[in-house]
Protein backbone atom coordinates (compact mmCIF):
# COMPACT_ATOMS: atom_id res chain seq x y z
CA UNK A 1 0.00 0.00 0.00
CA UNK A 2 1.46 3.42 -0.92
CA UNK A 3 2.62 5.56 1.98
CA UNK A 4 2.72 9.33 2.42
CA UNK A 5 4.34 11.02 -0.58
CA UNK A 6 7.82 12.55 -0.42
CA UNK A 7 8.19 16.23 -1.28
CA UNK A 8 11.31 17.05 -3.35
CA UNK A 9 12.05 20.79 -3.22
CA UNK A 10 14.12 22.16 -6.11
CA UNK A 11 16.61 25.04 -5.90
CA UNK A 12 15.80 28.23 -7.77
CA UNK A 13 18.61 27.58 -10.26
CA UNK A 14 16.86 24.43 -11.55
CA UNK A 15 13.28 25.61 -11.57
CA UNK A 16 13.62 27.47 -14.88
CA UNK A 17 14.50 24.19 -16.59
CA UNK A 18 11.15 22.63 -15.65
CA UNK A 19 8.76 25.48 -16.29
CA UNK A 20 9.05 27.05 -12.85
CA UNK A 21 8.18 23.88 -10.93
CA UNK A 22 9.43 24.37 -7.37
CA UNK A 23 8.45 21.08 -5.84
CA UNK A 24 7.88 17.52 -7.05
CA UNK A 25 5.65 15.22 -5.07
CA UNK A 26 6.71 11.58 -5.30
CA UNK A 27 4.51 8.71 -4.31
CA UNK A 28 6.28 6.45 -1.87
CA UNK A 29 5.65 2.79 -2.73
CA UNK A 30 6.99 1.57 0.61
CA UNK A 31 7.76 2.97 4.04
CA UNK A 32 11.28 3.80 2.91
CA UNK A 33 13.24 4.18 -0.30
CA UNK A 34 16.82 5.22 -1.09
CA UNK A 35 17.78 8.65 -2.37
CA UNK A 36 18.65 7.00 -5.71
CA UNK A 37 15.21 5.40 -5.99
CA UNK A 38 13.54 8.65 -4.99
CA UNK A 39 15.45 10.65 -7.62
CA UNK A 40 14.66 8.03 -10.29
CA UNK A 41 10.97 8.58 -9.58
CA UNK A 42 11.17 12.34 -9.15
CA UNK A 43 13.06 12.86 -12.41
CA UNK A 44 11.11 10.40 -14.56
CA UNK A 45 8.97 13.25 -15.82
CA UNK A 46 11.75 15.86 -15.73
CA UNK A 47 14.68 14.15 -17.42
CA UNK A 48 16.80 17.28 -17.75
CA UNK A 49 17.10 17.43 -13.94
CA UNK A 50 18.77 14.05 -13.69
CA UNK A 51 21.92 15.18 -15.51
CA UNK A 52 22.09 18.28 -13.34
CA UNK A 53 21.88 16.59 -9.96
CA UNK A 54 23.66 13.28 -10.68
CA UNK A 55 26.55 12.27 -12.90
CA UNK A 56 26.24 9.32 -15.27
CA UNK A 57 27.43 6.94 -12.52
CA UNK A 58 24.39 7.97 -10.49
CA UNK A 59 26.43 9.90 -7.93
CA UNK A 60 25.34 13.29 -6.58
CA UNK A 61 27.48 15.97 -8.19
CA UNK A 62 30.32 17.36 -6.08
CA UNK A 63 28.77 20.78 -5.54
CA UNK A 64 25.19 19.61 -5.00
CA UNK A 65 23.67 18.70 -1.64
CA UNK A 66 20.64 16.55 -0.88
CA UNK A 67 19.04 17.02 2.56
CA UNK A 68 16.54 14.45 3.85
CA UNK A 69 14.41 15.90 6.63
CA UNK A 70 17.18 18.42 7.30
CA UNK A 71 20.05 15.90 7.31
CA UNK A 72 22.77 16.13 4.65
CA UNK A 73 22.57 12.76 2.90
CA UNK A 74 25.68 13.52 0.85
CA UNK A 75 27.72 13.42 4.08
CA UNK A 76 26.29 10.03 4.95
CA UNK A 77 25.25 7.16 2.75
CA UNK A 78 24.80 9.40 -0.29
CA UNK A 79 22.44 8.00 -2.89
CA UNK A 80 22.02 4.94 -0.66
CA UNK A 81 20.62 6.98 2.23
CA UNK A 82 17.11 6.08 3.37
CA UNK A 83 14.22 8.42 2.63
CA UNK A 84 11.24 7.69 4.89
CA UNK A 85 7.70 8.08 3.64
CA UNK A 86 6.44 11.64 4.00
CA UNK A 87 9.94 13.11 4.05
CA UNK A 88 10.90 16.56 2.86
CA UNK A 89 13.94 16.39 0.55
CA UNK A 90 15.78 19.57 -0.40
CA UNK A 91 18.16 19.65 -3.36
CA UNK A 92 20.48 22.64 -3.06
CA UNK A 93 23.51 24.00 -4.80
CA UNK A 94 26.52 24.12 -2.51
CA UNK A 95 27.94 27.51 -1.55
CA UNK A 96 30.97 27.28 -3.76
CA UNK A 97 32.54 29.00 -6.76
CA UNK A 98 34.44 32.19 -7.49
Amino acid at each position, binding site marked *: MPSAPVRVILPGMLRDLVGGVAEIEVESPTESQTVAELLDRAFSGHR*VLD*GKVRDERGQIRRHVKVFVNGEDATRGAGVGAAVPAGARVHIINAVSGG
Partner: protein
Amino acid sequence: MTETIVAIGTRKGLWIARSTDRREWALEGPHFLMSEVASVAVDTREGRSSVLAGVKSWHWGPTVQVSSDGGRTWTESAERALSFPTDTDTALERVWQLTPDPNDSDVVWAGVEPHALFRSTDRGKRYELVRGLWDHPHRPSWEPGFGGGAVHTIVPEPGHPEHLLVAMSAGGVYRSEDGGNTWEASNPGIRAYFMPDNEYPEFGQCVHKVARGQADGALYAQNHKGVYRSDDNGHTWESIADGLPTDFGFTILAHPRRPGVVWNIPVQDDGERIPPGAQLQVQRSDDGGAHWRMQADGLPADSYTCVLRDAASLDESDPVGVYLGTRNGDVFASADEGESFQRIATQLPDVLVVRAAQLG
Protein backbone atom coordinates in the same frame (compact mmCIF):
# COMPACT_ATOMS: atom_id res chain seq x y z
CA MET B 1 24.32 39.44 -46.28
CA THR B 2 27.35 37.60 -44.96
CA GLU B 3 27.90 38.00 -41.25
CA THR B 4 31.10 37.20 -39.41
CA ILE B 5 30.61 35.85 -35.92
CA VAL B 6 33.22 35.39 -33.23
CA ALA B 7 32.09 33.05 -30.47
CA ILE B 8 33.95 33.76 -27.23
CA GLY B 9 33.79 31.10 -24.53
CA THR B 10 34.95 32.17 -21.07
CA ARG B 11 35.09 30.95 -17.49
CA LYS B 12 31.71 32.55 -16.86
CA GLY B 13 29.72 32.36 -20.05
CA LEU B 14 29.63 32.80 -23.82
CA TRP B 15 29.64 36.05 -25.75
CA ILE B 16 29.23 36.47 -29.51
CA ALA B 17 30.62 39.34 -31.56
CA ARG B 18 28.97 40.03 -34.91
CA SER B 19 30.00 42.13 -37.88
CA THR B 20 29.07 42.53 -41.52
CA ASP B 21 32.32 44.29 -42.47
CA ARG B 22 34.81 43.04 -39.83
CA ARG B 23 35.41 46.65 -38.75
CA GLU B 24 32.32 47.49 -36.71
CA TRP B 25 31.44 44.83 -34.15
CA ALA B 26 28.44 44.29 -31.91
CA LEU B 27 28.90 42.14 -28.81
CA GLU B 28 26.05 39.94 -27.55
CA GLY B 29 25.88 38.08 -24.29
CA PRO B 30 26.33 36.56 -21.94
CA HIS B 31 24.76 33.24 -22.69
CA PHE B 32 25.10 30.63 -19.89
CA LEU B 33 26.21 33.25 -17.36
CA MET B 34 28.33 31.68 -14.60
CA SER B 35 28.92 28.51 -16.61
CA GLU B 36 32.30 27.74 -18.11
CA VAL B 37 32.38 27.46 -21.90
CA ALA B 38 35.60 25.64 -22.83
CA SER B 39 34.64 24.54 -26.34
CA VAL B 40 32.70 26.04 -29.23
CA ALA B 41 32.19 24.99 -32.84
CA VAL B 42 30.49 26.97 -35.57
CA ASP B 43 28.98 24.50 -38.02
CA THR B 44 28.49 26.07 -41.44
CA ARG B 45 28.35 22.80 -43.37
CA GLU B 46 25.54 22.65 -45.95
CA GLY B 47 24.76 26.31 -45.29
CA ARG B 48 23.93 25.79 -41.63
CA SER B 49 24.30 28.49 -38.97
CA SER B 50 24.69 26.11 -36.04
CA VAL B 51 26.80 26.80 -33.00
CA LEU B 52 27.72 24.08 -30.50
CA ALA B 53 29.01 24.88 -27.02
CA GLY B 54 30.56 22.69 -24.35
CA VAL B 55 29.11 24.23 -21.21
CA LYS B 56 29.99 23.35 -17.62
CA SER B 57 28.09 24.64 -14.62
CA TRP B 58 30.11 24.58 -11.42
CA HIS B 59 27.10 23.06 -9.71
CA TRP B 60 25.12 21.23 -12.37
CA GLY B 61 27.88 19.64 -14.42
CA PRO B 62 28.87 19.55 -18.09
CA THR B 63 26.76 19.30 -21.23
CA VAL B 64 26.63 20.33 -24.89
CA GLN B 65 24.17 23.02 -25.94
CA VAL B 66 23.13 23.61 -29.55
CA SER B 67 21.99 26.72 -31.39
CA SER B 68 20.58 26.56 -34.90
CA ASP B 69 20.31 30.34 -35.37
CA GLY B 70 23.92 31.46 -35.12
CA GLY B 71 24.05 31.54 -31.34
CA ARG B 72 20.98 33.65 -30.61
CA THR B 73 18.92 30.93 -28.95
CA TRP B 74 20.02 27.65 -27.42
CA THR B 75 18.60 24.20 -26.80
CA GLU B 76 19.68 21.65 -24.25
CA SER B 77 18.71 18.03 -24.70
CA ALA B 78 16.50 16.65 -21.92
CA GLU B 79 18.65 13.54 -21.87
CA ARG B 80 22.39 13.77 -21.36
CA ALA B 81 23.95 14.85 -24.66
CA LEU B 82 27.32 13.32 -23.86
CA SER B 83 28.03 10.83 -21.11
CA PHE B 84 30.29 7.88 -20.44
CA PRO B 85 28.74 4.40 -20.75
CA THR B 86 27.93 2.70 -17.45
CA ASP B 87 30.61 0.02 -17.82
CA THR B 88 33.38 2.64 -17.80
CA ASP B 89 32.47 3.80 -14.27
CA THR B 90 33.61 7.24 -15.39
CA ALA B 91 31.95 10.63 -15.21
CA LEU B 92 32.38 13.42 -17.74
CA GLU B 93 34.28 16.41 -16.36
CA ARG B 94 34.36 18.81 -19.27
CA VAL B 95 34.02 19.03 -23.07
CA TRP B 96 37.23 20.62 -24.30
CA GLN B 97 36.77 20.37 -28.06
CA LEU B 98 33.97 20.18 -30.62
CA THR B 99 34.98 19.57 -34.23
CA PRO B 100 32.57 19.25 -37.17
CA ASP B 101 33.86 16.59 -39.56
CA PRO B 102 34.68 17.90 -43.05
CA ASN B 103 33.91 14.51 -44.63
CA ASP B 104 30.43 13.87 -43.22
CA SER B 105 28.12 16.79 -42.57
CA ASP B 106 26.24 14.90 -39.84
CA VAL B 107 29.33 13.98 -37.81
CA VAL B 108 30.74 16.04 -34.95
CA TRP B 109 33.70 14.92 -32.83
CA ALA B 110 34.08 15.83 -29.15
CA GLY B 111 37.27 15.68 -27.10
CA VAL B 112 36.68 15.49 -23.38
CA GLU B 113 38.15 15.26 -19.90
CA PRO B 114 39.01 12.63 -18.75
CA HIS B 115 40.97 11.62 -21.86
CA ALA B 116 38.37 10.39 -24.35
CA LEU B 117 36.95 10.98 -27.80
CA PHE B 118 33.24 10.97 -28.62
CA ARG B 119 31.40 10.95 -31.95
CA SER B 120 28.00 12.36 -32.86
CA THR B 121 26.17 11.32 -36.00
CA ASP B 122 23.25 13.72 -35.57
CA ARG B 123 25.08 17.03 -35.97
CA GLY B 124 26.13 17.32 -32.36
CA LYS B 125 23.02 16.54 -30.37
CA ARG B 126 24.01 13.13 -28.94
CA TYR B 127 27.48 11.58 -28.68
CA GLU B 128 28.91 8.09 -28.27
CA LEU B 129 32.27 7.08 -26.83
CA VAL B 130 34.91 6.05 -29.37
CA ARG B 131 35.93 2.75 -27.84
CA GLY B 132 39.05 2.33 -29.94
CA LEU B 133 40.80 5.19 -28.15
CA TRP B 134 39.22 4.51 -24.75
CA ASP B 135 40.50 0.92 -24.82
CA HIS B 136 44.01 1.91 -25.91
CA PRO B 137 46.61 0.18 -23.72
CA HIS B 138 48.43 3.48 -23.18
CA ARG B 139 45.42 5.18 -21.57
CA PRO B 140 46.27 4.32 -17.94
CA SER B 141 49.62 6.05 -18.47
CA TRP B 142 48.23 9.31 -19.86
CA GLU B 143 48.73 12.09 -17.33
CA PRO B 144 46.69 15.24 -16.78
CA GLY B 145 48.22 18.55 -17.79
CA PHE B 146 47.68 21.61 -15.61
CA GLY B 147 44.29 22.16 -17.25
CA GLY B 148 43.25 18.54 -16.69
CA GLY B 149 43.66 15.30 -18.61
CA ALA B 150 41.83 15.74 -21.87
CA VAL B 151 41.66 15.04 -25.56
CA HIS B 152 41.71 18.70 -26.54
CA THR B 153 42.50 18.61 -30.25
CA ILE B 154 40.82 16.72 -33.09
CA VAL B 155 42.14 17.01 -36.64
CA PRO B 156 40.23 15.22 -39.39
CA GLU B 157 41.65 15.10 -42.91
CA PRO B 158 39.43 16.44 -45.69
CA GLY B 159 38.95 13.79 -48.38
CA HIS B 160 40.07 10.96 -46.09
CA PRO B 161 37.31 10.10 -43.63
CA GLU B 162 39.33 7.19 -42.29
CA HIS B 163 42.16 9.51 -41.16
CA LEU B 164 41.89 11.20 -37.77
CA LEU B 165 44.47 12.73 -35.46
CA VAL B 166 43.97 13.72 -31.83
CA ALA B 167 46.24 15.39 -29.29
CA MET B 168 46.06 15.31 -25.55
CA SER B 169 47.72 16.71 -22.47
CA ALA B 170 49.73 14.89 -21.50
CA GLY B 171 49.79 11.93 -23.80
CA GLY B 172 50.85 13.44 -27.11
CA VAL B 173 49.57 12.87 -30.64
CA TYR B 174 47.63 9.77 -31.65
CA ARG B 175 46.62 8.85 -35.16
CA SER B 176 43.94 6.57 -36.58
CA GLU B 177 43.77 5.43 -40.19
CA ASP B 178 40.59 3.37 -39.87
CA GLY B 179 38.04 5.92 -38.73
CA GLY B 180 38.89 5.68 -35.04
CA ASN B 181 38.81 1.93 -34.50
CA THR B 182 42.54 1.62 -33.82
CA TRP B 183 45.09 4.23 -32.78
CA GLU B 184 48.85 4.63 -32.76
CA ALA B 185 50.96 7.10 -30.81
CA SER B 186 52.48 9.45 -33.38
CA ASN B 187 55.15 11.55 -31.72
CA PRO B 188 58.49 10.80 -33.47
CA GLY B 189 60.54 13.98 -33.30
CA ILE B 190 58.51 15.67 -30.56
CA ARG B 191 60.63 16.26 -27.50
CA ALA B 192 59.40 15.74 -23.95
CA TYR B 193 62.15 17.74 -22.23
CA PHE B 194 60.65 17.07 -18.80
CA MET B 195 61.26 13.32 -18.98
CA PRO B 196 64.31 12.38 -16.90
CA ASP B 197 65.85 9.73 -19.17
CA ASN B 198 64.32 9.39 -22.62
CA GLU B 199 63.31 12.81 -23.98
CA TYR B 200 61.77 11.23 -27.08
CA PRO B 201 59.36 8.63 -25.69
CA GLU B 202 56.71 6.89 -27.78
CA PHE B 203 54.04 8.92 -25.96
CA GLY B 204 53.65 11.22 -22.97
CA GLN B 205 54.42 14.48 -24.76
CA CYS B 206 52.43 17.54 -23.74
CA VAL B 207 51.14 18.70 -27.11
CA HIS B 208 49.03 21.85 -26.73
CA LYS B 209 47.51 22.25 -30.19
CA VAL B 210 47.76 20.87 -33.73
CA ALA B 211 46.50 22.66 -36.83
CA ARG B 212 46.28 21.47 -40.41
CA GLY B 213 47.17 23.67 -43.37
CA GLN B 214 44.25 22.95 -45.67
CA ALA B 215 46.13 23.88 -48.84
CA ASP B 216 48.95 21.36 -48.56
CA GLY B 217 47.90 19.14 -45.65
CA ALA B 218 50.92 20.10 -43.53
CA LEU B 219 50.41 19.77 -39.79
CA TYR B 220 51.73 22.27 -37.26
CA ALA B 221 52.01 21.58 -33.53
CA GLN B 222 52.59 23.83 -30.55
CA ASN B 223 54.03 21.74 -27.78
CA HIS B 224 54.84 22.43 -24.13
CA LYS B 225 58.20 23.84 -25.26
CA GLY B 226 58.59 23.05 -28.93
CA VAL B 227 56.96 24.03 -32.22
CA TYR B 228 56.82 21.39 -34.95
CA ARG B 229 55.78 20.65 -38.51
CA SER B 230 54.81 17.35 -40.09
CA ASP B 231 54.68 16.78 -43.83
CA ASP B 232 53.68 13.13 -43.57
CA ASN B 233 50.36 13.45 -41.76
CA GLY B 234 51.83 13.22 -38.29
CA HIS B 235 54.04 10.18 -38.74
CA THR B 236 57.13 12.31 -38.05
CA TRP B 237 57.72 15.84 -36.79
CA GLU B 238 60.52 18.38 -37.20
CA SER B 239 61.18 21.52 -35.22
CA ILE B 240 60.28 24.90 -36.71
CA ALA B 241 60.99 26.86 -33.53
CA ASP B 242 64.35 28.37 -34.49
CA GLY B 243 63.04 31.70 -35.72
CA LEU B 244 60.58 32.24 -32.87
CA PRO B 245 61.28 34.36 -29.78
CA THR B 246 60.31 31.36 -27.62
CA ASP B 247 59.25 27.78 -28.21
CA PHE B 248 56.57 27.87 -25.49
CA GLY B 249 52.94 28.67 -26.16
CA PHE B 250 49.51 27.16 -26.35
CA THR B 251 48.01 27.66 -29.78
CA ILE B 252 48.84 27.54 -33.46
CA LEU B 253 46.79 28.39 -36.58
CA ALA B 254 47.21 27.47 -40.24
CA HIS B 255 45.88 29.39 -43.25
CA PRO B 256 42.81 27.78 -44.85
CA ARG B 257 44.06 28.32 -48.43
CA ARG B 258 47.69 29.43 -48.65
CA PRO B 259 50.31 26.74 -48.09
CA GLY B 260 52.99 27.54 -45.52
CA VAL B 261 51.18 30.44 -43.84
CA VAL B 262 50.95 29.78 -40.12
CA TRP B 263 50.46 31.86 -36.97
CA ASN B 264 51.91 31.13 -33.54
CA ILE B 265 51.21 33.03 -30.32
CA PRO B 266 54.37 32.78 -28.24
CA VAL B 267 54.51 32.74 -24.44
CA GLN B 268 57.74 33.77 -22.75
CA ASP B 269 58.37 30.49 -20.91
CA ASP B 270 56.54 27.75 -19.06
CA GLY B 271 57.65 29.44 -15.84
CA GLU B 272 56.74 32.93 -17.13
CA ARG B 273 53.39 32.71 -18.86
CA ILE B 274 53.30 36.21 -20.31
CA PRO B 275 53.90 37.52 -23.84
CA PRO B 276 57.61 37.69 -24.80
CA GLY B 277 58.97 40.97 -23.49
CA ALA B 278 55.44 41.74 -22.25
CA GLN B 279 54.38 42.59 -25.82
CA LEU B 280 51.22 40.75 -26.81
CA GLN B 281 51.90 39.46 -30.31
CA VAL B 282 51.43 36.84 -32.94
CA GLN B 283 54.29 35.38 -34.97
CA ARG B 284 53.61 34.72 -38.62
CA SER B 285 55.45 32.49 -41.04
CA ASP B 286 54.89 32.46 -44.79
CA ASP B 287 57.20 29.54 -45.47
CA GLY B 288 55.98 26.76 -43.23
CA GLY B 289 57.97 27.83 -40.19
CA ALA B 290 61.41 28.45 -41.72
CA HIS B 291 61.16 32.16 -40.94
CA TRP B 292 58.90 34.12 -38.58
CA ARG B 293 58.01 37.78 -38.10
CA MET B 294 56.14 39.52 -35.32
CA GLN B 295 52.70 41.03 -35.90
CA ALA B 296 51.66 43.30 -33.03
CA ASP B 297 50.08 46.43 -34.52
CA GLY B 298 47.10 47.15 -32.28
CA LEU B 299 48.11 44.64 -29.60
CA PRO B 300 49.14 46.05 -26.20
CA ALA B 301 52.62 46.37 -24.75
CA ASP B 302 53.14 46.06 -20.99
CA SER B 303 50.86 43.07 -21.23
CA TYR B 304 51.09 40.28 -18.67
CA THR B 305 48.24 38.17 -19.90
CA CYS B 306 48.23 34.90 -21.84
CA VAL B 307 46.38 33.33 -24.78
CA LEU B 308 45.21 29.81 -23.99
CA ARG B 309 45.05 26.67 -26.13
CA ASP B 310 41.81 27.33 -28.01
CA ALA B 311 41.57 31.08 -27.55
CA ALA B 312 42.59 31.91 -31.13
CA SER B 313 40.91 31.33 -34.45
CA LEU B 314 40.86 32.22 -38.12
CA ASP B 315 37.91 32.97 -40.33
CA GLU B 316 37.88 31.91 -43.98
CA SER B 317 37.44 35.32 -45.60
CA ASP B 318 39.87 36.79 -48.10
CA PRO B 319 41.98 38.21 -46.53
CA VAL B 320 41.76 35.83 -43.61
CA GLY B 321 40.69 37.22 -40.24
CA VAL B 322 42.78 36.42 -37.17
CA TYR B 323 41.22 36.48 -33.69
CA LEU B 324 42.62 35.97 -30.21
CA GLY B 325 41.29 36.22 -26.66
CA THR B 326 43.26 36.71 -23.47
CA ARG B 327 43.07 35.53 -19.90
CA ASN B 328 42.22 39.07 -18.82
CA GLY B 329 39.12 39.16 -20.99
CA ASP B 330 40.18 41.08 -24.09
CA VAL B 331 39.44 39.88 -27.62
CA PHE B 332 41.36 41.23 -30.62
CA ALA B 333 40.46 40.91 -34.30
CA SER B 334 42.47 41.38 -37.46
CA ALA B 335 40.80 41.65 -40.87
CA ASP B 336 44.11 41.71 -42.74
CA GLU B 337 45.80 38.43 -41.84
CA GLY B 338 47.40 39.77 -38.68
CA GLU B 339 48.92 43.02 -40.01
CA SER B 340 46.74 45.10 -37.66
CA PHE B 341 44.41 44.31 -34.78
CA GLN B 342 41.53 46.04 -33.04
CA ARG B 343 40.02 45.25 -29.67
CA ILE B 344 36.46 43.95 -30.10
CA ALA B 345 35.72 42.95 -26.50
CA THR B 346 37.15 43.84 -23.11
CA GLN B 347 36.55 43.13 -19.42
CA LEU B 348 35.17 39.66 -20.10
CA PRO B 349 36.09 36.73 -17.84
CA ASP B 350 39.16 34.63 -18.81
CA VAL B 351 38.80 33.65 -22.46
CA LEU B 352 39.03 29.88 -22.98
CA VAL B 353 37.96 29.53 -26.60
CA VAL B 354 37.49 31.75 -29.66
CA ARG B 355 35.90 30.53 -32.88
CA ALA B 356 35.22 32.71 -35.91
CA ALA B 357 33.17 31.91 -39.00
CA GLN B 358 31.10 33.45 -41.77
CA LEU B 359 27.37 32.85 -41.73
CA GLY B 360 24.78 33.32 -44.38
